[in-house]
């Protein structure tokens, strides 16, 4: 399915979804509360069949005071791609988990929690993935400070 048809098909499922500009793949901005239901529909719809969560990560937009969560979906049988973008408040970073729809999300979300401190509602095993449990701070946040880190001399 090409990009325009794909966006139209998803918007039929979720009318609140808006197109995100400045991307090279079809990307839709989805409200956080609608994420799980939409993902399940995308996975089960016979014309869409997004069965692979290729990756999930976050972007810290410090100036706009929000985190943008990106879910890159792909369809193995049909070969098309779609990105879902969810914006959440930086002060209260909670989103529902996608574990039940895509099992791999369990670990991808743990990585995002480890790096950005985003909390996943209903996650079965939310804990740090790469860093020790007693690590302070979330390294990939833009305002992360660590005395240990060295700046490269100019």
């Amino acid at each position: 399915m090409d990009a325009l048809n794909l966006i139209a098909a998803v918007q039929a499922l979720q009318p609140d979804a808006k197109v995100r500009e400045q991307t090279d793949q079809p990307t839709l901005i989805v409200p956080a509360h609608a994420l799980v239901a939409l993902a399940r529909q995308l996975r089960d719809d016979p014309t869409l069949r997004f069965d692979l969560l290729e990756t999930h990560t976050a972007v810290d937009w410090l100036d706009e005071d929000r985190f943008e969560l990106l879910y890159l979906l792909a369809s193995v049988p049909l070969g098309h791609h779609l990105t879902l973008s969810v914006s959440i408040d930086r002060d209260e970073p909670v989103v529902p988990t996608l574990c039940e729809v895509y099992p791999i999300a369990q670990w991808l979300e743990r990585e995002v929690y480890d790096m950005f401190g985003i909390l996943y509602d209903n996650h079965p095993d939310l804990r740090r993935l790469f860093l020790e449990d007693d690590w302070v701070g979330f390294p990939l946040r833009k305002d992360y400070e660590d005395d240990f880190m060295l700046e490269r001399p100019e």
Partner: protein
Amino acid sequence: MSVHVSTLQARISGESTASSPLSTEEYFVNMGPQHPSTHGVLRLVLRLDGETVREVVPVLGYIHRGIEKMGEHGNYRQFVHLVDRMDYLSALANNWAVTMVVEKAAKMETTERIQAIRTLVCELQRIQSHLLWWGVFGMDLGGFTPFFYGLREREQICDIFEKTIGARLTMNYIQPGGVMFDIHPEFVKDVKAFISYLKPKLVEYDALVTDNVIIQERIRGIGKLSAERAIALGATGPVLRASGVAHDLRKSEPYGVYSQLDFDVPVGKDGDCWDRYWVRMEEMRQSVRMIEQLIDNIPEGKTFMVKPAAKIKVPAGVHYSHLETARGILGVLLVSDGKEAPYRIHCRTPNFNNLWCIGEMATGGRMGDLVAMLSSIDIVVPDIDR
């Protein structure tokens, strides 16, 4: 709303689930991070019931270097050499993945020659990676001979790379806008000599290991992974193809000059260790086929389109592209704000997703088979941790 942040300690100190007085008590065994068959510093905490594996809890981070954070502090060219050190056995494919997303986003043009060279060296490295895997797989199963055979052939590929690229392992060769150097004058001759050397060796490998009854009995039927679960767990590469899903980006979304090449995608049936073994052996043959088609047809043209020191700027936005390394799909997500350094750069690495299949494969299996399963996934730990 129920957000609960747990710890490793809490995770592995559960109550015993022994139900009847006759059942044995379950216990945890720690495997790694210093263990000869975890291929680096992977740590697995195993919940065992006698010899039966009840649960595998991988613990990561023993080689987490923060490459994504470092990427935000350098320009695009400086990020290329960092990804060399992620999956060092597919260093060229890693270079290419970053290059691809930067070129696509910055709309840089390349020549046919650049694409042909990239394809050629990547396929050579795929053979190199699979040879090393084959050797180590044999060693993990207790036979030392494959290790010597695999590494012997690998050295020849290293020599070819050394002549053209100057490095044996971490290449930094494929750059945004081209390749670092043109191929060595003897490259074509060397590759041809190597291919004619390797082909009978692959037959020899089959006689030595593939057709070996002991190996077949050892790896057939263990570590099964169904196609649905493989996709649900995000597995890619030979792990996914062994489960019967013919998903190969070289075929489905051709990049480089793969669209001009004639090759098959080997697919397994049951998704057990044997299928994963067979798929990789077959992929080596397919790579040989591709190199044979390409080696005499490298088009003429420039090998670098921009000056090596030229500043690259990428228009603001989210860019993503992916390719097929020896282990699966490597995707690079690039979020740019229009400056010289990426605002955020994320690598979707094949090993990260493939690793979680071990839980699916090993649960209910025998402790002694775990090493064979782990080895058949072909894990490179720095690629998981980044």
